[in-house]
């Protein structure tokens, strides 16, 4: 923080008009090194799913929107930006029980507060001027906090969703309507195939670009393309549905059938984490484990986030193309009716 800024802030507090100085601070805030560095980190590094990371991100987004209209806001916002940058840089948001992209991060490099100072977890273990019981108490509190963070932000909301899934729709991989549609389309394709192989001169002429009977040939060609387009649309919508509904059903099964197991997994990981750190403190050995040894809920959390988005949207719209399919089928039927009438009346 520049000393001039402090002096300006003091003058503002005692009632001096600093508006002319504040004008330059607005641009300075957004273009200063700290904000630029934060943007760089966010662009260059993979976004973590850690809960504190999301909080930091929200804080940063709020900070960007801050209207710097006083020296006080400038100073506080600059301080907050520094805090956010430090948190991102040193990965202070990491919870070793829950990290999706930072699996190879060493447990010993996690930043904690020990005796009022920031320190790496690995350094606590090796500190000689503190008793083991003091170190154990500090570490225990951190493990409890990490455990609670996951309980509050994942396990409890998941259990609530499982007990009361009010907005989660029931879905089949291929619903009855789609099966019926498929059968109808199959019949339409079968009749079209028949017209290709039949000896009827009208179909033959139309297929060989003989438009001597244009009232039959042209509609027939359009009809062929329509069926072909309908087939493609059907196949595409089927694949799309399969992709989304499969994901939904897999997520649904993973969470709803295994919510108790997920909670148990967390209990086991926390106990293992605490035990490993405790052993290192007592035996005065280095912490060498990676976070991936304790962080076992990444897949489940991704599924939960997906289910949560469905729950919040209150629908799983996967057959957005079905309306178009119906339109195409209706057009096909219109053409079929036309051909029937034409054949009956004129042929």
């Amino acid at each position: 923080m520049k000393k001039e800024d402090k002096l300006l802030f003091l003058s503002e507090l005692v009632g001096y008009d600093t508006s002319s100085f504040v004008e330059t601070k607005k641009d300075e805030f957004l273009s200063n090194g700290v904000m630029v560095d934060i943007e760089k980190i966010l662009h260059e590094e993979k976004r973590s799913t850690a809960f504190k990371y999301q909080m930091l991100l929200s804080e940063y987004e709020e900070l960007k929107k801050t209207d710097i209209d006083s020296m006080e806001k400038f100073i506080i916002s600059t301080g907050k930006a520094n805090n956010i940058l430090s948190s991102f840089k040193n990965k202070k948001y990491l919870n070793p029980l829950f990290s999706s992209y930072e699996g190879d991060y060493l447990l010993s490099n996690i930043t904690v507060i020990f005796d009022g100072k920031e320190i790496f977890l690995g350094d606590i273990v090796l500190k000689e001027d503190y008793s083991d019981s003091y170190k154990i108490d500090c570490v225990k509190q951190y493990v409890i906090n990490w455990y609670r963070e996951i309980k509050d932000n994942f396990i409890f909301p998941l259990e609530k969703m499982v007990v009361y899934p009010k907005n989660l729709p029931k879905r089949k991989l291929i619903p009855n309507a789609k099966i019926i549609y498929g059968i109808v389309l199959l019949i339409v394709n079968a009749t079209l195939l028949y017209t290709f192989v039949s000896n009827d001169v009208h179909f033959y002429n139309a297929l060989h670009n003989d438009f001597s009977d244009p009232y039959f040939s042209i509609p027939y060609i359009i009809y062929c393309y329509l069926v072909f387009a309908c087939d493609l649309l059907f196949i595409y919508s089927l694949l799309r549905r399969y992709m989304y509904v499969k994901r939904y059903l897999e997520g649904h099964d993973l969470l709803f059938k295994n919510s108790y197991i997920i909670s148990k997994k967390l209990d086991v990981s926390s106990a293992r984490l605490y035990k490993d750190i405790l052993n290192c403190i007592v035996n005065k050995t280095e912490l060498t484990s990676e976070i991936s040894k304790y962080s076992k809920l990444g897949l489940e959390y991704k599924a939960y986030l997906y289910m949560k988005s469905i729950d919040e949207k209150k629908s799983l719209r996967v057959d957005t193309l079905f309306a178009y399919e119906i339109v195409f089928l209706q057009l096909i039927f219109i053409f079929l009716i036309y051909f029937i009438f034409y054949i009956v009346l004129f042929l």
Partner: protein
Amino acid sequence: MSVIIKIKDQDYFSFEEFAKNIYMYPDESYKLINSRKFLLMLKKENEAMYNSIIELRKSEIQEGAFIFKAQYVFCPLMELKYYKVKYFTPEELGKRILNGAPRIDIYIQELIKYKLISYYMKLQGLDKLEPGFYKKIIDLEESFSYNEIRTYFKMGFILSKSKEIVYRRRKYSDVKAFFDVILSPAIITSFASDFEKDQYLFAWLEILGYEKEIIKFDAIISSVEEWEEK
């Protein structure tokens, strides 16, 4: 009473005369007063003074404070004197503090630190004459350990009963006029570089009644600096 007190090459023939010059020879006086020979003579000549000095020896540890109080045992009605400097009034002491700002006089700082100004005022009966003023001095002395430099300059303002800050030989009583000067492009950088260390400006603003604002400033700056250190 036949008393001869020798300090360096000076002879004093009464305790009163000796007391009036203790401030000129503080180290030598301290050794003399605590010597067995002097104490025996004092006990023989004036038991009341002797008892007071013995009480002082038991309570006072710091040498300067002992000598300051001892001089008033021998001569209660005297100007404020400490370490070779005499102040005819507390107001004069205050002016001396402000005239030297932002530099600190370490001996005046000792007067505040060991609560000797309020001691002197009580001795002279000023605690009864100006109780409100006396209370301000007591409060300031109590707050010395929280911020020594700021308290030092606040003492200067209160003792001299002044609400003007002096900067580059000009006096300012108005906040706006003062900041108009120090925030000018030519001066802001040089003033800003030392203003926190000096505490002189903070002392003045507190005297003007901006205590809450200073507390807010201290709180916000320390939080922000804590974030920056991480």
